[in-house]
Each structure stands twice: as structure tokens, then as C-alpha cells.
């Protein structure tokens, strides 16, 4: 009650200041007059009485001040005064203010931008209502499930698949139905897989779309409404249900212009007609971080779409491929739900004899926010590195601004001493100085937010343009980002403002006011202790810059190493694209061969084309096909794992992979029932033990299965990743799968694309071309993380370097100004120009050297966190450290010379006379 009264009365004083003041005035003068009246009754004259009263009771003005100061709202008033005074002081030195605001803007802006990215990838909750109720199902067992086909799509953290422990988030469709029907612990379940690359044709044009394969209750469970039309329901999942699709809002906008007429329209997916029944709510942008899709189709359509997952058969118990998310019923605890799901899972896997009771198969329910990791697992390490880098950057900005404020505090000592002498409390002066720091910090943050907005947009487009797959990131600043920036601003203001405030208010009154602040003796004495607080701040900045620069240097060097790695084939002038006639269903096996042969022939006739071939997968695309085989004549009879690639004729010639012995694959091999293969050098080295490889067979364990005869040996290549050493690889003829064409050109491979598109269109207009890229573009995308980090780290390193040099320059300039008189005396006593130059430059450079040394020690401790990002370089690579130090030294010499040069121009007569 009284608190409310207190606040109400305080607000009244604030907003009706004049009236409250007038009342106090009237009351006080009344008080004093009444006291005077009393005195007059005892015989004093009026004037005597008033004087006596003032002496006894205090004057009216002082009393008013006392009463006012006792109110809490007066604190706000003085704060406001401080702010206005601060703004006036800052406006008086616009240069200083601009440098400080810019420095802080860089620090705060970089932090906000990186935090927005971190927020988008790691922190934002799933954009559905009550995401905290969602759990993702994960099974585990003390043993590997038997005869189970398992696939996953990067939704969950990782799959364990060892003999003693296995665990993943993939379930079979019959299992989903069992859990749905036999337990009542979930209020809803949503299963999904993919997205699948689907070939879409409507109005005669063909394109590839990404369709997520989902259960009928997907939208209902996630509580996602429709922006237009309807979403899916369980009846869409029934076998034989009409083929329907729900579009994502962004796809509807870009492909259909947000036109409501799109609902009810028929599109063809992999040649199957689908009816568009609705568009999902625009707020539902993703379920798994970084993953997005164009549309959702019910999982019962998988067979019709000829998607090979689960062998296209939904009823199979041994195909585990669906990720399942559930909403736990409100009356059920998490433990109960877990037990319920585990019971069903156990009886099902034991019934189907995938696992034994002794393996203790069970289901764990993870919060979906944590369990659906998606891109998070990929981005975690680089993001934390970037957060570290920008945190260091902010520290450097703070040290820089603190240094500038310190010099300013020195020049303001007289002003502050004067204010203390006039009766301002030390606390009051400190509050005023901190208010100024806070003002600078807020201005810096405002500029920083603009900067971060630009930075986040640039970063977003860099990610979109360079990442292998499209990803969706919501980088619009939300409440989390806002709170982060506010906290950062306050922290920054205190961090850089505190030291100068303490030092500034420690000023000893008398000597400051009495003598000139540039007294000769004082200056020479203080000139000797050159590692004052200002010097220490420069050392900190230099050391931190070394850390950022060393990290950047190591990542850049790794990137250079990776780019110059020998891939085993010529990556230049190669254009690649994918076609998949198996999806359309209008080609029989033999016709596929004919199509590829004809396309190969037509492409090779195009001007500027040297060679054309095709393969099941592109090299260095990140995907890999491995299989277990038995190799004829090996002493060790166990299965070995080899990498496989199906290729067309002329492949080795097109890729410029040398044939070492034997022959390459020939047109006859493509159709012959006799299976042949070409293996690489690693294959021979690892499995042949000095035997002649040609004529030997390898293949499945069962001798009735496919056996390949080795007909030739080719040079080693990197397969899926530049970082990996070449592994044993077998190349077999490509007979009936989709293909990736590779065109070797004379120059600029990208320029050939329109002609290649025409050539394909003339053969079959309904066959979409997808994944079109040059080989070098593909490598760049594979190196996305490295490039992103190298790019940002170099940028941050550069900013750190500039800031450290501004700090150094500022300190030395201030020193020169402060020591003008001392330099004058030295000159009079015979010091030469180079002596003066050395005096100032040596001071700066010794600070830099100390900073570099400390920076080395800190870097050596921190660079190991770069870990897996590095390639062909040690975390404590001496030459990188040396180069970074050299760069910093060269730049800092420039920063030292300018003020030192100014010092040599000091005219001794002017310096000595100046007071």
C-alpha cells in the first residue's frame, strides 16, 4: 500500500513539478514567518526576527534542497541532468565521440550479428504452438538389430550401430502404427522422412522440388493450420487414398504468386498426378533446424512416387526410416509415456526377431527442441568459434575505448577537481562519468544494431549462396537478440567506463588545481612508468588481436592447403548436372542406356566440349556409396568395405584419371551380362598383396550373387571429401540408375549450360536437369564451413588490428601532448631529432612487443579449439604465428611513427613558454 502511495506521490512530483514546488515554497515560507511572528511577539524587530529564524531553522533555499534530495524521484532527475550534461560534453568533442561510437558499434554489431546467427541455429524454438510438449522418439538397445534396413535424414544427432550398443531415431511404418494404436500416452504422433527430391511438372515445364514424406497426422500433431485450403489428415494416409500435396507458404508465394487458384490444381510429381489441397501456415518454416521443404505429401504415396526408401513397401517391418515426433498427452508424465512407447517397441522388435529381450530394447523420449538437431550438429563448432572471436573483438573495443576515456579523464582532471572542490561528492562525480560511458555505449549499440542488421543479411546471403543444400534461417531480430544486445550494452558501458571513472575521481585536489598539469618534474617522473593503465590497455589490445589474427591465419592456411590438395583428377573446366529417368517411369532399363548414350553423343558434338561422361555420383559431393565385398584369393576371408561408383564409358578420360594398367570400361561392358570392374591403386595396394589384380573377382559373400572381374587399374582420387585419404574404390558400369553427367570443356564450363539444357530438352522435354554446378563450385561448397570461418575470422582479425593500432596511436599522441615540455627540455639540452623519435617510438614498440608475446602464449592455448577445421597445419604453427606478429609489428610501427614524428617538431621555446 505505502509503496504504491510512495510511487504515486513520486510520479506526482515528477509530472506536476511546478505545483509541488510552489506548495513546498508556500509551506516553508509560512513556517519561517510563523516562527518570526513568535520572535516579534518577544520584542524583536521584523528584520531581526527573520534573520534569527534563518539562523536557527535554516534558510528557505537550503531546506528546499534538503527536502527535494530526500525524495526518490530526485535520483531520476539528477540522472536526467547527467544525461543532458553528458550529451553536451560529448558534443564538445565530436572527433572523440565519433571514434568511440564507431569502435563500440564494431564490437557490439559483430556480437549481435553472430548472436542472431547462433539464435537462429541453436536457440529459436520450433515455430509451432507449445513446442515444449513435443518429444522425439529414440530407440536404443545393447546390440545391433538383425536384418534391418536403416536410413536417416540428418534429423537426429547421430546413429550408433555397434555390436554392443545401437541407437537411432528411425522407425518402420508398422511400428508407427503399433505405437499409434496400442498406446494412449501421446495426444498425437507425427512421422516424417526426407525431403525427397521429386521431379515436378506442371504446364509443360519440369523442375525438381523437395517434398517431405509425412504421416497423415503430421499437421494435426504439430498444430499447424492452413493458410489456404486444408492440411493433411489421417484419411490421406490410407492406402488407395487420392494423391494430395500441401505446399509450404514460401513455395506457394514464389511458384504460384500466392494465388488461391493454386488450390485444387493438379501437378505431376515423378509423373504421378497430385492435387494441391492446401498451403501450410506461414509461421511454420521448419521442424528441424536448417531444413526446409517445398511441399508435404502423405507417406502412403511413396510406392506411387517410386521412392526407394523402405524398398517402396510400407508394410515391411524391417525398413526403419521414419523419424517420429510425439506430443505427450497432458495427463501422462514423461516417464509413463516412455514406458508405454518402450513396451510396444520391445514386443514388436522381439516378435520380428530383430532384437532379443536380453538386448533391452527401449525407447527414450527427448525434448524435440534438443533431439531434432539437424544443422545444429554441423554448425555448433564453427558457431562457438565465431562467438569466441567476436567476444574477443568486443574486449578489444572496450580496451580501446577505455584507453581513450583514460586520456580524456587526464585532460579533464581540472574540471573534475573543480567540481569536487565546489562540493560535488565523489560518488556523484563517478555517477556522472559512468553516465557518459553509458551514453557512449548506447550510441555504439544503436549504430551496432544497424551494422549487425547489415551483417546478418550479408551472412544470410553468403550462407544461402554457398551452402550445398538450401537452408532456412530466421535472422530477424527477436526478443532474445534484443535482450542480449541490451545486456551487452550495459556490460560494455560498465566494462570500459569503470577504470577511467575510478582513476578520474581519485584525483587529488590540491596539486591538480595549484600547478599546471604538465609540470616538468611531474611529467618526467610519470614518463618513466610507461606501463601505466593506458599502456596496459594497449598491451591487452595487441595480445587479443594476435589471438584473433593467429586463429584467422591458421584457418586461411588450412583453406589454402585444402584447395591445393591433389584430388587425383582435373577439377577445372568440368560442368556437371544430374538427370534421373528412373523417376518418370517412362523408361525401361535398356532404354535408359540408350538415352545416356544418345545424350553423351549429342553433348560431345557441342562446340567447346572436349569429353563427356556420366557416373552414379559426382566426386567430392559429400556423398559416398560403400559396400562389403569378398575378394578372390585373399588369405583373410573376411568381408572388406570398398567404395563403389557406377560410371559410363569414357569416364576416366573425361575426369583425367590415368589408367595405370589394363583397360578402362568400354561400350561393350555397359550391356554385357558379364560384370567387370576397374579398381584404383589403393584397392590394389591394400587387398592384392603383390598379386596381379587383372582377372581376379570380387563381389558379394554369396558366390551366387554378383561377381565383378577386375579388368584394369586407375589412379587414386579423393571420393567424397578432400580431407580424406584415397580409399579402395571399384568402378563398375552404370546400367540403370540415375546419372550425373560431366562435361569437360575447353574453357568456362558454366557458359555451356544453355546448350547442354537444349540438348537434353531435344531428347526429352519432361526430364529435369538438377544439381547443375561446375566441379570447382562443388568443391567450394564442400569447403563452406572453412570458407565461412576464414572469411569472418580474417574480417574480425583486420578489425582487431585496426582497433589495436588506433589504441596505440591514441596513447602515443596523448603521451606526446603530455610530454611536450619534457621533450622541449630534452631538445634544449641537446637531444637530436632521432633521439626524440626513438624516445616515443620505443615506448610504443615495447608495448607492442609485450602484447605480441602475451598474445603468443594465449593463442597457443586457444588455437587447439580450431581442431577439426585445420588441415595440414598444426594449431601452434610457428610460421603462421610469425607472419601474424610481423604484420602487426609493421602496422604498429606506422601507428607509432605519426605521433613520434609530431614530437620531433616540438619547438623548445614554445614548449617551455607554454603554460
Amino acid at each position, binding site marked *: *500500500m*505505502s509503496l504504491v*502511495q*510512495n510511487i504515486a*506521490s*513520486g510520479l506526482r512530483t515528477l509530472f506536476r513539478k511546478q505545483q509541488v514546488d510552489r*506548495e*513546498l515554497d*508556500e*509551506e*516553508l515560507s*509560512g*513556517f*519561517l*514567518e*510563523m*516562527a518570526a*511572528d*513568535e520572535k516579534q511577539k518577544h520584542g524583536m524587530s521584523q528584520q531581526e526576527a527573520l534573520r534569527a529564524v534563518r539562523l*536557527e*531553522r*535554516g534558510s*528557505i533555499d*537550503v*531546506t528546499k534542497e*534538503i*527536502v527535494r534530495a*530526500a*525524495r526518490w524521484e530526485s535520483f531520476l532527475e539528477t540522472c536526467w541532468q547527467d544525461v543532458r550534461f553528458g550529451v553536451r560534453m560529448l558534443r564538445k568533442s565530436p572527433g572523440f565521440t565519433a571514434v568511440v561510437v564507431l569502435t563500440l558499434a564494431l564490437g557490439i554489431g559483430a556480437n549481435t550479428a553472430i548472436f542472431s546467427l547462433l539464435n537462429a541455429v541453436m536457440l529459436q524454438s520450433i515455430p509451432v504452438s507449445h513446442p515444449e510438449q513435443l518429444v522425439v522418439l529414440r530407440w536404443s538397445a545393447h546390440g545391433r538389430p538383425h536384418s534391418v534396413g536403416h536410413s536417416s535424414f540428418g534429423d537426429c544427432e547421430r546413429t550408433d550401430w555397434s555390436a554392443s550398443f545401437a541407437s537411432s531415431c528411425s522407425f518402420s511404418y508398422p511400428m508407427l502404427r503399433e505405437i499409434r494404436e496400442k498406446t494412449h500416452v501421446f495426444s498425437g504422433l507425427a512421422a516424417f522422412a526426407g525431403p525427397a527430391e521429386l521431379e515436378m511438372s506442371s504446364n509443360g515445364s519440369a523442375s525438381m522440388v523437395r517434398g517431405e514424406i509425412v504421416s497423415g497426422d503430421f499437421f494435426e500433431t504439430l498444430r499447424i493450420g492452413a493458410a489456404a485450403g486444408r492440411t493433411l489428415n489421417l484419411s490421406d494416409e490410407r492406402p488407395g487414398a487420392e494423391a494430395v500435396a500441401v505446399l509450404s507458404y514460401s513455395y506457394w508465394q514464389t511458384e504460384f504468386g500466392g494465388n488461391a487458384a493454386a488450390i485444387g490444381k493438379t501437378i505431376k510429381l515423378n509423373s504421378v498426378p497430385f492435387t494441391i489441397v492446401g498451403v501450410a501456415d506461414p509461421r511454420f518454416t521448419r521442424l528441424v533446424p536448417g531444413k526446409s521443404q517445398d511441399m508435404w505429401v502423405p507417406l502412403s504415396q511413396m510406392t506411387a512416387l517410386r521412392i526407394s526408401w523402405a524398398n517402396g513397401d510400407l508394410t515391411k517391418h524391417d525398413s526403419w526410416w521414419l523419424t517420429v515426433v510425439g506430443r505427450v498427452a497432458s495427463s501422462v508424465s514423461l516417464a509413463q509415456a516412455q514406458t508405454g512407447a518402450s513396451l510396444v517397441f520391445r514386443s514388436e522388435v522381439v516378435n520380428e526377431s530383430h532384437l532379443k529381450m536380453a538386448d533391452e530394447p527401449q525407447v527414450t523420449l527427448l525434448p524435440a527442441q534438443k533431439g531434432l538437431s539437424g544443422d545444429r550438429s554441423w554448425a555448433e563448432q564453427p558457431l562457438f568459434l565465431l562467438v569466441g572471436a567476436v567476444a574477443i573483438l568486443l574486449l578489444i573495443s572496450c580496451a580501446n575505448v577505455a584507453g581513450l576515456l583514460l586520456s580524456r579523464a587526464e585532460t579533464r582532471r581540472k574540471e573534475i577537481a573543480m567540481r569536487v572542490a565546489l562540493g560535488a561528492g565523489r560518488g556523484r562525480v563517478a555517477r556522472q562519468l559512468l553516465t557518459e560511458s553509458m551514453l557512449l555505449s548506447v550510441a555504439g549499440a544503436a549504430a551496432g544494431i544497424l551494422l549487425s542488421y547489415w551483417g546478418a543479411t550479408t551472412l544470410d546471403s553468403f550462407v544461402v549462396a554457398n551452402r550445398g543444400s538450401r537452408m532456412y534461417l530466421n535472422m530477424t531480430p527477436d526478443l532474445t537478440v534484443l535482450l542480449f544486445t541490451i545486456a551487452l550494452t550495459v556490460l560494455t558501458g560498465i566494462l570500459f567506463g569503470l577504470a577511467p571513472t575510478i582513476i578520474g575521481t581519485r584525483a587529488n585536489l590540491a596539486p591538480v588545481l595549484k600547478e599546471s598539469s604538465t609540470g616538468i618534474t611531474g611529467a618526467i617522473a610519470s614518463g618513466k612508468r610507461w606501463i601505466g593503465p593506458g599502456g596496459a590497455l594497449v598491451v591487452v589490445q595487441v595480445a587479443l588481436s594476435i589471438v584473433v589474427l593467429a586463429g584467422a591465419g591458421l584457418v586461411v592456411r588450412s583453406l589454402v592447403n585444402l584447395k591445393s590438395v591433389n584430388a587425383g583428377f582435373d577439377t577445372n573446366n568440368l560442368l556437371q548436372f544430374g538427370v534421373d529417368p528412373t523417376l518418370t517411369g517412362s523408361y525401361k532399363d535398356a532404354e535408359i542406356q540408350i538415352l545416356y548414350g544418345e545424350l553423351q553423343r549429342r553433348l560431345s558434338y557441342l562446340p567447346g566440349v572436349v569429353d563427356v561422361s556420366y557416373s552414379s555420383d559426382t566426386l567430392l559431393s559429400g556423398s559416398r556409396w560403400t559396400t562389403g565385398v569378398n575378394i578372390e584369393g585373399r588369405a583373410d576371408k573376411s568381408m572388406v568395405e570398398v567404395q563403389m561408383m557406377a560410371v559410363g564409358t569414357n569416364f576416366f578420360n573425361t575426369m583425367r584419371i590415368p589408367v595405370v594398367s589394363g583397360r578402362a570400361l568400354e561400350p561393350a561392358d555397359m550391356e554385357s551380362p558379364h560384370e567387370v570392374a576397374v579398381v584404383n591403386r589403393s584397392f590394389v595396394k591394400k587387398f592384392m598383396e603383390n598379386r596381379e589384380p587383372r582377372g581376379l573377382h570380387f563381389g558379394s559373400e554369396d558366390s551366387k550373387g554378383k561377381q565383378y572381374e577386375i579388368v584394369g587399374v586407375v589412379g587414386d582420387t579423393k571420393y567424397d571429401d578432400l580431407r580424406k585419404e584415397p580409399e579402395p574404390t571399384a568402378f563398375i558400369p552404370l546400367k540403370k540408375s540415375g546419372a550425373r553427367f560431366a562435361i569437360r570443356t575447353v574453357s568456362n564450363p558454366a557458359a555451356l549450360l544453355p546448350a547442354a539444357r537444349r540438348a537434353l530438352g531435344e531428347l526429352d522435354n519432361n526430364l529435369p536437369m538438377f544439381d547443375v554446378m561446375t566441379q570447382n563450385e562443388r568443391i567450394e561448397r564442400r569447403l563452406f564451413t572453412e570458407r565461412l570461418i576464414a572469411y569472418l575470422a580474417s574480417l574480425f582479425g583486420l578489425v582487431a588490428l585496426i582497433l589495436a593500432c588506433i589504441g596505440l596511436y591514441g596513447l602515443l599522441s596523448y603521451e606526446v601532448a603530455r610530454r611536450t615540455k619534457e621533450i622541449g627540455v630534452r631538445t634544449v639540452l641537446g637531444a637530436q631529432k632521432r633521439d626524440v623519435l626513438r624516445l616515443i617510438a620505443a615506448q610504443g614498440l615495447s608495448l607492442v612487443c609485450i602484447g605480441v608475446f602475451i598474445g603468443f602464449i594465449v593463442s597457443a592455448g586457444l588455437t587447439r579449439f580450431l581442431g577439426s577445421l585445420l588441415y595440414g597445419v598444426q594449431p601452434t604453427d610457428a610460421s603462421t604465428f610469425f607472419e601474424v606478429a610481423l604484420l602487426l609489428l609493421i602496422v604498429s610501427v606506422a601507428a607509432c611513427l605519426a605521433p613520434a614524428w609530431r614530437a620531433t617538431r616540438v619547438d623548445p621555446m614554445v614548449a617551455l613558454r607554454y603554460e
Partner: protein
Amino acid sequence: MVMSDQTSDLVQGTLDMLILKTLALEPMHGYGVAARIEQMSDGIFRVNAGSLFVAFERLLRAGTIKGEWKTTENSRRARYYSLTERGRKRLDSETQEWARQVAAIARILERS
């Protein structure tokens, strides 16, 4: 503020209690309260305007007293303060507390 040998400073925190006690008798303006305290203490306590009005402000905001502008017998405008119900309760509890403390201090002083 000590003005003569006879006056002395108030014990810390007792001014509020004295004001409440004074107002318990009848509503009064600022000078009235000061004069009454001096008179009742036989001139030992002298209250200066600063402390008095800060105390009024404090008591007003605590809701123990309320103020009202009226005309005095000398036809001057002045704010008259009076006790609220809350103020009456607080005066009672503070008086009891004070009595307990004084008794305790007296016992200690007698013993030594």
C-alpha cells in the same frame, strides 16, 4: 542543530514518533508541530525546517499522516497534518517499543 547549551539533538529516528505523538492530539501545521515539540520538551529539542519537512514527506508517503490546506487563526494559508488510522497504529507500536528500550537502558545504567 545545537543552538544553545540547553538544546540537544534528537535521538536518531525519534523525530517521526514525536511528530506522530504531537499530531495525535489535534491536526496541526508545520510550525505548530515544531513549536509543540520544543514546548513539550521544555526547549531541549529544537527542530529545524529541513529535518521536519523531510520527516513530513516520509510520513506522508508511508501513509501515516495526511495533509490538507487550511487557513490559520492569523488568516494565513498553511497545510494542516493529521494522523491516519495507520499512523495511529504505528504510534502505538513505536511508543511501546520505545518504552521497552528506555526501561532496558535504565536497568543497565542502574546496575553499573
